């Protein structure tokens, strides 16, 4: 058995697991979905460095659509 389809598509296992988690969160019932969707929100700032010099900062922000 060769690589899984998501590995072929360039995803790491961590990304695949998180996408699965997103799918599971979206099928939760109403009273649970709000607290679960809050866990999808992400904010952080990364700076790639090369040869001792920082590059441009990249802000990663994900705000899942607020439900109810």
């Amino acid at each position, binding site marked *: 058995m060769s690589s899984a389809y998501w590995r072929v598509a360039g995803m790491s296992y*961590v990304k695949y697991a*998180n996408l699965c988690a997103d799918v599971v969160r979206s099928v939760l019932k109403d009273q649970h979905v709000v607290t679960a969707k809050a866990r999808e929100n*992400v904010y*952080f700032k990364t700076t790639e460095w090369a040869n001792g010099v920082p590059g441009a900062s990249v802000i990663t922000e*994900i705000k899942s659509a607020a439900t109810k």
Partner: protein
Amino acid sequence: MRRAAQGIASLVKQKNITSPVVRNAAQGFVEASSAMEGSIAPFGARHASRQLLQQRMKSVGNIAKITLAMKMVAASRLRMAQNRVEQSRGFWVPMAKLLGDCPDVDVPKNLTVAITSDRGLCGGINSTVSKVTRATLNSVEAMGQAEDKVNKLVILGEKGRAQLIRDQHSIINMVAVDWTKNAAGPSFTAASMIADEIIKVEHDVARIIFNRFKSAISFLPTVATVASAEVNDKRCEMGGIMDEYEIEEEDRTPLLVDMAEFQLAAVLHNGMLENQASELGSRMSAMDSSTKNAKEMLEKLTLTYNRSRQAAITTELIEIISGASALEG
């Protein structure tokens, strides 16, 4: 005699002799120039230093209030942070039981991840992590015989960046900050995305350094080791890990790659949460001792202030009395 009379005259001009606090320094200086020429010191000099003392007392009092408030905030956040830490242990503990943790593995490409906080005033935890990071980088270079040893560094947290940038800037690959901006603590999603960036840095072993939260007063600097899939492959072949499981040869490598990536994300998530709980506990005790010191300082300043106030009153009384007795005599 004239000087004493002039002293009384200036005293009479002043509104309130017994509480010199009410007068301001400017008023005192104006009266000094008008009333007492040739005196040893301007009349306001006494009051100016007492006013400085008063200003200092006010600022020290404010500091005590602010640090007390910061301690309360940190204490309330600490409870929730501790819950999050305990819930995150279920991810990395089984991985460690399965794949083991061997910090002394001798491989060419070594990645060190230092987890620190973004905000300061949290005691010594960030400098501890920086110290352990430097020690790890040095010991990796000194150990073993693998050729072409390469050290790479990833820093999480603004404080670590500020401390490690001085001597380690040439080996930094990535810096990530601000993950507590919109959320109370890093969710597994956030930790996974940061782990994804770290996975892209080529490495044979990742050593993640953070403060493990033992209790509200005890934070232990910890080095958690996550080996790459190739290293685990060799260890599987040699035996010792995953012996209990039947795995086909060709299935083993993709399985180990998946597990290594997940282990990195799980250990990173736990490390970020443990460090956050340690940061809150350390900030709590730092602000507590700061409040105590500020209150002590305030007590000492109050004593000094009262002493100088009483000395000023005594001096004025002496002037009055000596002036009065000079008039009589």
